[in-house]
Each structure stands twice: as structure tokens, then as C-alpha cells.
């Protein structure tokens, strides 16, 4: 039967279970808020980066309207409220800055179960924008062919060569190719040759958007100016995606900074709560501290005892807070996704090990600082005076 520091400290937590629970809960709430914020920041930033990579374009040309909505529709798939004239494509292609201009006509067909079939009319030029795409089969060229996203094909058991009928499109269609999983919205899309889509969707000579890859991405601003200055410039919205995503990040960053300040204040308040709880414990256990000093505990032993107690409370709060953040991440993700003007398809909340370690490290640092005053006060008590203090004073 040999004692240890952690044994002494753990048992001490049971002396006032309600006080211990409230103190730990205070830390846990603050840590959960900070962890969720950091996880969101990491997830959103990463998601935006991946979206940009997947899109493969530097500029998105869309009908007039909100650029955030347009980017969201182009990336995630939906029906467009208005259209571009197909003739604008030639004007865009004519500009010397443009390496590739891939036209698209997109439409979405909602289903009773809440899902939707997104049909995209495109040309083979889209393959130049999507270096990450791997096809089984080939891109559709005949009017009755289509390319299915990996998830769409898998869920229906489609393979290359399968002939299928779709409610959304007239006539039978042959699967010319199946896209290997890309981890984005493309996995759920159906691609048709552009002309076939314009015919079947009844939007002849219309486009919903043009994906533009530049010869020199470092000259994005000049290219955007030239695109806006062409004849069709007044009728289309030229959205530089890097700038758009940077603006989104900036908007999020400002909100996150404010929320981080609130969370930090909560964490500091929780730290003050821990400090106060342990100071109360020192006051209540003054006579016991005197007894411990009488039977051989040094001032540093007493300091260590109370300091470890504070660290344990903080660590407990930190672990609980991370558990809460992990458990609530799905709910937070869903809540955010419903409210953000633009949400990447990838997970928005990514509670990575690095964030967990950062939160735990921060909590331990807070506990160290919060525990210093009570531990120092306990260690400085005169054994003679402490032992004369009434019990529980």
C-alpha cells in the first residue's frame, strides 16, 4: 500500500463532488467552444481549398447575381435561376489570358426523398480543368451517352455500357464512363454532352456557367478586368474564385475572431473559477495543511498537492470539453451548413488530433497559472498557525 501524488489528488476531487463538477463543467464548456471554433476554422479553410482544387478553374463566369450563390450552385449542383447566352463563350475564349474555357449547363431535379439528380451538360474541355478525374470508360460524345459520378453509379449498380432510363431525361441512355470517386459533389452528378443537355433540358444556346482556366494565374486581376471589359461583360458576372474564397475566409475569419474572443473570455472566467475553487479548498483545509506540515510535508509538497489538484481539474475539464466538442460536431456541422452563405462539400468541422492537443495544452497552461496562487498560499501557511485554525474555517 504505497501512496502516490495522483492518488492523493484524485481522492481530493471527491471531497466536494458538486463543486468539483461545476468547476470542471466551466472549463469543459469553454474548451468545447474553443475546440469547435478551431475545428470549424480548420475544416472550412481546408474545405475551401479542396473546392478550389476540385473546380480546377481560376475564374467562374456566371449570369448576373450574387457571386457566392453562383459559386455554391456551380460547385454543389442546383437549378439556376437565369442563363448565359452560349455566344458569350466565344468572347471568353477569344481573350489571350484564357487557356481553357469549359461551358456548362446545369439543372437539378429534386426527388421526393429530398435528394436530387444534378445533370450537367459539358464538353470534353472540362477534362482539362479536372486533372484529378479518373474515368472508367470515356467522356460521352454521342447524344444518348452519359458519364456518371462514382456515387450515383454505385448506388444504382451502373457500369460502363449499361443502358438506363431516367425520369429526368427522355429516351434510353448508355453509360459511356463512370467517374472514379473524387470526394466532392461531382460524385453525385450526371454529365451529358453539352448539345444533348441543351436539347433535353430545353435551353438551346444557353449556358449556366463557364469555367475558365488562365494561362498565368498570377495575372488574375488583369484577366478579370479584360473579361469584364469584353462585349458580353455587362451581361455576365466574372467571379475570380481565389478572391471569392479569400473573401469568404475573411468574412468567416472576422466572425471567428469575435467568437474566439468570447471563448477566450469564457476560458479565463473558467480559470478564475478553478482558482477560486482551489482557494476555497485551501481555506477549508487550513488545519489539515497544518497537520500535513506537522507530519512531514514540506512547503513544496503542499504546493505540489494543490497545484496538481488544479491541473487535474483543468485537465478533466479539457478532456470533457473535447469529448463534448467531438460528440456535438455533427450537430454543429449541420447547424452551420444550414446557415452559411457558402459551405464546402467537405466536412466543415474537423476536430483533428493537433487541435485536441492544442486545447489540452492550453487547458494545462491555464490550470498551471490558475493553480499557482492557491498552491502558493497553501505552501506559505505557517504550520503552527494553520494547525490552530478551526476545522473547515
Amino acid at each position, binding site marked *: 500500500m504505497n501512496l502516490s501524488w495522483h492518488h492523493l489528488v484524485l*481522492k481530493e476531487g471527491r471531497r466536494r463532488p458538486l463543486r468539483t463538477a461545476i468547476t470542471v463543467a466551466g472549463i469543459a464548456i469553454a474548451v468545447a467552444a474553443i475546440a469547435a471554433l478551431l475545428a470549424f476554422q480548420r475544416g472550412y479553410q481546408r474545405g475551401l481549398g479542396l473546392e478550389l482544387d476540385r473546380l480546377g478553374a481560376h475564374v467562374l463566369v456566371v449570369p448576373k447575381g450574387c457571386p457566392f450563390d453562383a459559386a455554391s450552385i456551380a460547385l454543389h449542383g442546383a437549378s439556376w435561376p437565369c442563363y448565359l447566352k452560349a455566344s458569350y463563350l466565344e468572347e471568353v475564349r477569344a481573350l489571350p489570358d484564357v487557356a481553357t474555357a469549359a461551358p456548362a449547363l446545369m439543372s437539378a431535379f429534386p426527388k421526393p426523398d429530398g435528394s436530387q439528380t444534378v445533370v450537367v451538360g459539358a464538353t470534353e474541355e472540362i477534362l482539362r480543368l479536372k486533372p484529378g478525374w479518373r474515368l472508367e470508360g470515356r467522356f460521352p460524345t454521342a447524344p444518348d451517352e452519359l458519364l456518371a459520378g462514382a456515387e450515383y453509379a454505385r448506388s444504382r449498380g451502373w457500369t460502363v455500357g449499361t443502358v438506363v432510363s431516367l425520369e429526368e431525361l427522355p429516351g434510353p441512355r448508355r453509360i459511356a464512363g463512370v467517374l472514379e470517386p473524387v470526394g466532392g459533389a461531382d460524385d453525385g452528378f450526371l454529365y451529358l454532352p453539352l448539345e444533348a443537355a441543351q436539347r433535353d433540358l430545353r435551353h438551346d444556346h444557353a449556358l449556366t456557367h463557364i469555367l475558365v482556366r488562365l494561362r498565368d494565374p498570377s495575372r488574375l486581376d488583369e484577366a478579370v478586368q479584360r473579361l469584364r471589359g469584353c462585349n458580353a461583360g455587362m451581361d455576365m458576372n466574372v467571379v475570380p474564385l481565389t478572391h471569392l474564397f479569400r473573401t469568404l475566409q475573411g468574412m468567416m475569419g472576422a466572425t471567428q475572431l469575435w467568437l474566439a474572443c468570447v471563448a477566450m473570455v469564457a476560458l479565463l472566467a473558467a480559470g478564475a473559477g478553478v482558482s477560486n475553487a482551489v482557494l476555497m479548498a485551501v481555506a477549508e483545509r487550513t*488545519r489539515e495543511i497544518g*497537520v500535513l*506540515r*506537522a*507530519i*512531514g*510535508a*514540506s512547503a513544496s509538497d503542499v504546493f505540489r498537492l494543490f497545484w496538481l489538484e488544479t491541473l487535474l481539474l483543468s485537465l478533466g475539464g479539457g478532456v470533457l470539453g473535447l469529448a463534448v466538442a467531438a460528440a456535438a460536431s455533427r450537430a454543429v456541422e449541420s447547424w452551420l451548413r444550414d446557415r452559411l452563405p457558402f459551405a464546402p462539400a467537405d466536412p466543415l468541422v474537423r476536430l483533428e488530433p493537433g487541435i485536441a492537443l492544442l486545447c489540452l495544452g492550453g487547458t494545462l497552461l491555464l490550470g498551471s497559472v490558475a493553480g499557482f496562487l492557491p498552491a502558493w498560499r497553501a505552501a506559505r501557511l505557517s504550520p503552527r498557525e494553520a*494547525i490552530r485554525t478551526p476545522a473547515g474555517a
Partner: protein
Amino acid sequence: MSTAPHASSPSAAGTAVAAVVAAGLGKSYPRGRETVEALKEASFEIRSGEFVAIVGPSGSGKTTLLNLLGCMDTPTAGTLHLGGQEVSGLSEPERTRLRRDRIGFVFQHFGLVPTLTVAENVALPAFFARRPAAQRVDELLDTVGLSARRNHRPHELSGGEMQRVAIARALMNHPLLLLADEPTGNLDSETGDSILRLFQRLHAAGLTLVVVTHNPALAAAAARRIPLRDGRIQP
């Protein structure tokens, strides 16, 4: 039973060194603008293995003297030797080590840690000395007759049992000197008698005991009494 104190170091002449030698010991405290002399010119000697009672009315300086003997306080006058070592000028860390290794304390209020079991309370002095405790805890719980209660917590014990745990704890590090401050003060007479018998057994085993008490039976059981009045040892 292994309750024997530390073997006293032999003096140069080969005779046993006294457990306590106080010469002109005094303690005064400032109280506002006054200085209170709680103990004045106390000179006495306690031999190793002796059972001594410090008696006197309230405010006579008994606890002050016990605090000085237990290195809980430093004298403002005179010298104090414990086991041949001059202790009056020691620093607080040195006095802590002395308390831990050479002195056992028993308090009127028992002073047990409520969150720890009986065995863990007994082991505390060894823990602070960074020594293994298991075997010694077993011996001491056997000595005080509480082996069956080793996993109980203080609130599950009677007053007499709590005091026996406190005595076992005081003996943990083989002290030179056991100091008890009113050890029967919170106990009924029957339980007090059982503590007295335990002290007598420890004394018979060679332990040096100094007890501050108002209990006439306990004082009478001591081999010698040091009467105090107004901070002075009475002749």
C-alpha cells in the same frame, strides 16, 4: 511489534544522548504594541525512553512548549537539542525534515485526512519521506488493533479508533520523540483509558513520549511531570 524509536546516538563518552535538552528556552510573540512571553527560561531534559507529561492550566505555555519541541516553531531565547542536535536555529526546510524523520505528532482533533483510508492516513509520513510504507503500515495497524479497519475512512471510525490511527501515523517514520497534544481531550473516559494503555505499551517498548494533558489519569501514568504556570516551569 516494531514501535521502538530511533536508537539514540551514543555520546563521545559512550552514554546515551538525551532525547530533549532545553536550556533557557523562551518564546515571545508580538501582540499589537505588547510582547507576550508565552514561555520563559525553560530548562529541562528528557531522557530517551522517558514518558513525560506537561501539565498546567490553560494559557500556561504548554502548547507553546510542545510546538517548540516539535519544531513547529522557533524559540526566541535559549537553545534546544533533540537527539543531540541543536534545532533552535534551523531553517524551515530543515525543521520540516526533522519533523518528518524524528518527531511524531498526535493531536486532540486527530487530524486525519477524511478522503483517505485508515491505511493511507497511516502511510502519509512515509509518503512525504519518499519511503515505502506497506510493511510498516501493516505492523502499525496491528499494533493499534485496527488491521480490520484498514480500508475504512475516518468518518466510519469511533473517536478512539481515529486517535489510534493518528498514533499509528505518528509512529510511521520511527520517531525519536512522540508528542501528543491533549490526546484524550475529545474522548470519553473509557476510550481515553484505552489510549492511555496504548501509550503505556509504546513507552514500555522504548518510545520517548511527551504528552500535554489535562487528564489526571494520563498525567499520573507519566514517569515525570513538567508543571507549567504563566510560561515558567514550576519547581
